[in-house]
């Protein structure tokens, strides 16, 4: 019996997808939160068209980050509360395969929320949010954020105040994403050439975080 790395990653991500398709707990919660957030922002900024256009990139990323936090918490709680994290750790798998599998599921759900959010924001904010460059920036930002989120949620899920602790512990570490992603998004929406530099920085930060989280995951899950 030998478990291939790819088969293990696909099994874990596939299991998360199957569980979610059946329960619809995670995606529905993330979607409702994201929709309410952009509606609230839209109404709050309705009277000031310039402010609304200025704020759109920030609204997108704040909404995505908080929607993602909701999903991350529940995704890891599902593993921890029934002891399933132990079951994963008992299997003859590399710890990085467990991390990549969980990360893939989390990034997929947040990516789906983003892909539904972008056309809606195009309609509400009068900006072309479906620009392929913006879609790419969004997906890269989500990948980096979910890598960090998977690690941090694994760390905080064992605590009693995990719902409150995850955002508090994670937001300072997520600032490099928020800053670079908002700048890159704003650059794309205003057709400024500097978006490329911000996008490259975002991709670099995402890659560094992904590698670091991959290396640190073992120390977070093992007693």
């Amino acid at each position: 019996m030998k478990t291939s790395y790819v088969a293990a990653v696909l099994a874990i991500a596939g299991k998360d997808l199957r569980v979610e398709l059946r329960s619809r707990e995670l995606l529905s919660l993330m979607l409702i939160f994201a929709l309410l957030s952009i509606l609230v922002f839209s109404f709050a900024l309705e009277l000031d068209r310039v402010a609304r256009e200025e704020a759109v990139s920030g609204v997108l990323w704040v909404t995505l980050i908080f929607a993602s936090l909701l999903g991350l918490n529940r995704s890891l709680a599902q593993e921890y509360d029934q002891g399933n994290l132990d079951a994963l750790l008992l299997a003859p798998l590399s710890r990085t395969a467990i991390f990549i599998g969980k990360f893939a599921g989390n990034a997929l759900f947040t990516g789906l929320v983003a892909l539904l959010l972008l056309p809606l924001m195009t309609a509400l904010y009068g900006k072309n949010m479906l620009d392929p460059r913006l879609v790419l920036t969004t997906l890269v930002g989500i990948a980096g954020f979910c890598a960090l989120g998977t690690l941090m949620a694994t760390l905080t899920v064992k605590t009693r105040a995990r719902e409150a602790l995850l955002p508090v512990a994670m937001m300072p570490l997520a600032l490099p994403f928020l800053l670079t992603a908002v700048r890159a998004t704003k650059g794309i929406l205003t057709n400024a050439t500097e978006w490329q530099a911000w996008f490259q920085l975002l991709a670099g930060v995402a890659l560094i975080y992904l590698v670091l989280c991959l290396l640190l995951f073992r120390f977070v899950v093992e007693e």
Partner: protein
Amino acid sequence: MIDERAIIEVERLSKVFGLLPALQNLDFTVARGEFVLLLGANGSGKSTLLRLLSGLSKPTAGAIRIGGWEMPREAMAIRPHIGLVAHRPLLYENLTARENLSFFGKLYGIEANECDARSQALLQQVGLSRRADSLARAFSRGMKQRLSIARALLHQPDILLLDEPYSGLDQAAAEALDGALATARREARTIILSTHQLQRLPQNAQRALILSRGKVAYDGVARAGEMTAIYQAASA
């Protein structure tokens, strides 16, 4: 199959949580195919010992060798040989019984057809074949425990570790567990079963290991009918 006579060797094993010593200087070996009862009051260190043996926790000091491999350094080689039935069922509530077994089969690298056949046989053995396509969340505590036993046996481990498997079980579930243990014995699997319920001890255990405050208080033959007296003397 691991074929060394002493399949588990524990030397001067200690585990400390903060300042609290959970296990202190344990020394024992378990022979291949042996059925060991691990007895002790709540907090005596039974669960900690099983977590150490399964590789879920690392020792503070001492050594654990399983089949000649050292834990936790060579844990990857040991993991396919260990099955654990823990306090919690280690199952996904939103997957069916069959899907749970199929998922864990993939994690252990069991080929799909082989996994289906084993799942079918194990579900039959634990009396859940009629509920194979029901979600685990619809199961009672006893049914979850039976499915948990099927999960632990799916990859045909040489060593089966059971942590308080009888707690919360009704009569039917306890009998299904007895049946699964008898089958595991016939298949020459090494079994370590922890419990604090002296009124519900499996009859075919060969040896008892009693823990008291993190130390071995008794290590000897599990004599049916005398275990309560032995336990009380050892725990005093």
